[in-house]
């Protein structure tokens, strides 16, 4: 056509976009995990560094291969596989065998994520699927603990929760808070996890309602049971900072892909996770229930979303004025 300009671009409105991107979000998550990860390498030795490397490499390779096989283009460099790789290691015991990590990372990406259609489509948290799979595959390795370099306890290698559950030992709050206890690689230092997640909360990459309602539920229920039988049940502060609750609530329950999209839904989801954590910790066969609580509730997310569809503006209200 006789048009002196080059061809104009056509697209529908809006014509401007915010500067958020999936890549930016995922990279932020990775960066905020660095302090806790670095601390864990210090605490549990260089072997954990190897585990991180193996896990990340496996995740990236599996992701790449599957996406290639399926002839899809996206998700190669968005950084979500990196998050999965790091988080998987953070919830494993410090001396977990490296071949197990390879299997776990592969399962995380392939069974946890790609078979559902890849980024954004998965129902369950991929890293937790990897961990749960490993727990059932190598149940012995998954319950072998060692003492960290900076350790408050003298001998026992048991985690604070196992100590509480099987031996009635309650670890002091400060140890839990700073992470000088035994436990999974990246879960021990509550303070670093909280600091890291503050940035994500600020940027709203984490829906604050989720960790908030988990914490509130755990505190309330923990307190109730503690009041009923202080000898048998530890107090709420212990529950809050022991085990994987921090990393679980802040990073894993709050994974945007696998949590509800409605505000009310987030509260329901968080409360249910809190409830399940307490039930499993106090009455179940396992010492720690965060992982299973999150996975269990992941399955309910579609139902929760459906049940908590927000009231559309201008519907269901009285229009008298």
């Amino acid at each position, binding site marked *: 056509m006789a*048009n002196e300009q*080059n061809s104009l671009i056509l697209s529908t409105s809006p014509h401007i976009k915010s500067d958020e991107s999936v890549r930016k979000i995922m990279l932020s998550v990775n960066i905020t995990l660095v302090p806790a990860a670095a601390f864990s390498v210090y605490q549990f030795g260089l072997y954990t560094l190897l585990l991180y490397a193996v896990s990340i490499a496996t995740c990236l390779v599996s992701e790449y291969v599957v996406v290639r096989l399926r002839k899809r283009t996206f998700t190669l460099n968005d950084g979500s596989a990196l998050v999965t790789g790091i988080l998987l290691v953070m919830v494993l015991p410090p001396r977990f065998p490296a071949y197990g990590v390879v299997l776990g990372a592969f399962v995380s990406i392939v069974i946890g994520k790609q078979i559902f259609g890849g980024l954004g489509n998965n129902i369950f948290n991929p890293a937790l699927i990897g961990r749960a799979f490993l727990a059932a595959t190598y149940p012995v390795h998954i319950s072998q603990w060692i003492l960290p370099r900076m350790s408050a306890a003298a001998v026992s290698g048991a985690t604070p929760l196992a100590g509480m559950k099987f031996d009635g030992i309650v670890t002091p709050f400060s140890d839990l808070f700073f992470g000088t206890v035994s436990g999974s690689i990246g879960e021990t230092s509550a303070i670093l996890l909280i600091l890291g997640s503050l940035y994500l909360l600020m940027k709203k990459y984490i829906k604050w309602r989720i960790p908030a309602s988990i914490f509130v539920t755990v505190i309330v229920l923990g307190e109730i049971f503690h009041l009923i039988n202080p000898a048998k049940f530890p107090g709420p502060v212990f529950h809050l900072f022991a085990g994987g609750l921090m990393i679980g609530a802040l990073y894993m329950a709050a994974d945007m892909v696998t949590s509800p999209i409605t505000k009310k839904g987030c509260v329901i989801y968080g409360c249910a996770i809190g409830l399940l954590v307490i039930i499993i910790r106090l009455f179940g066969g396992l010492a720690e229930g965060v992982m299973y609580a999150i996975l269990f509730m992941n399955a309910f997310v579609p139902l929760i979303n459906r049940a908590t569809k927000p009231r559309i503006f201008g519907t269901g209200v009285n229009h008298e004025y």
Partner: protein
Amino acid sequence: MKLFSFQGGVHPAYRKELSGQREIKEAGIPEQLVIPLSQHIGAPCEPGVAAGDRIKEGQVIGKTVSFVSAPVHSPVSGKVKKIEKSFHPLGQKVLSVIIQPDDEGARDYMKPLGKNASELDPKDILTRITDAGIVGMGGATFPAHVKFSPPKDKPIDTLIINGCECEPYLTADHRLMVEMPEYIISGAKMIGKVLDVKEIVIAVESNKPDAVEKLEKAGDERDILCVLTKTKYPQGAEKMLIKAVLNREVPSGGLPMDVGVVVSNVGTALAVCESVRDGKPLIERVVTVTGNGVKNPGNFFVKIGTPVKHLIEQAGGTAGNIGKCIMGGPMMGIAQASLDVPVIKGTSGILIMQEADYMQEGYLPCIKCSFCVQVCPVNLLPSKLSVIAEARRWDLADSYGVNDCIECGCCDYVCPGKRPIVQFIKTAKIKVREIKEREKK
């Protein structure tokens, strides 16, 4: 002062500084004007002239054929070159009158009715609004006289004059409020008189304090209340504005009159005032020409029918390689396929973007971050709607309220996956309507 607001919304970079302080200038008369005979919602007009006719400024060239319609007047004196289908800013081809202007300056305005609203008969005002071809200037281009004649069972108690101008980049309404506050106030009173309302409110976003100052000075606090609203897009959307100012919710699928309100743009008020006071039909409007694709962004009085190309020249010509030409603001405006399209009654701005500014490479799957859910002012689940449309499950779209979407673009703006959510929704709306029609048959 209290800031009124609503749930959701976004804060895009406003970029109003580009043109906000530029006084409105005359854009002059282009070589040729293309005047579509359908510039409003409703039935298109029939041509009232024939090729070769000489016409005067203000003469009717498009006659209405039904109630929901608005006549079209010639913005200049000149000669009708031809009448044929021509590109319309909305994308289709529409029957248009093409006018070759001359320098005779012959005018054919209507008889002025008077200045003071309180002395006028509401019926006369309404007739004048009808004859002047006034439509909503906020973008919806709904014929004003229809909007101002609500059915008997829907009494109107409040008139809101919408001076929010929440779209980024646009400053036309802002300049109007600063430069011609008396006209706006007087126009608002006239509309108020027609509707017989108890209260008239002018709502302005908090980033335009100078406008409020001028309006307050020009008006009288007893008749007209100026309120500040939070600077947040889409504060100017009428449903949101009514919620913010009056805390009333327009029912889904309903109109502001269902809750006793009429919302009008400041430009509409101005046009009403001019038509009543001076007898001038709607042949001219204020347009912001802006964006990094023009050298000197500014605000102009523009004759309806002026091609975009002419306006770009008035704004100092293009800067860099032009990528996109948008009629309207960046959030809701329509990208144009050529620079020959004319300004119409509803055009509030022309945004020219450089090549570097627009392109987006593909989009990702929804990661359910729920950013879009947080910002949707009408509480939809845009993520769900986009995924539904992507999977072509039109049957589900309706149950997720696709037709309640006001297409404000907030969801699309915040989406980190850069998903074209609004386009998905628009597509779904079409499909849902198609399916419903088919079912009816």
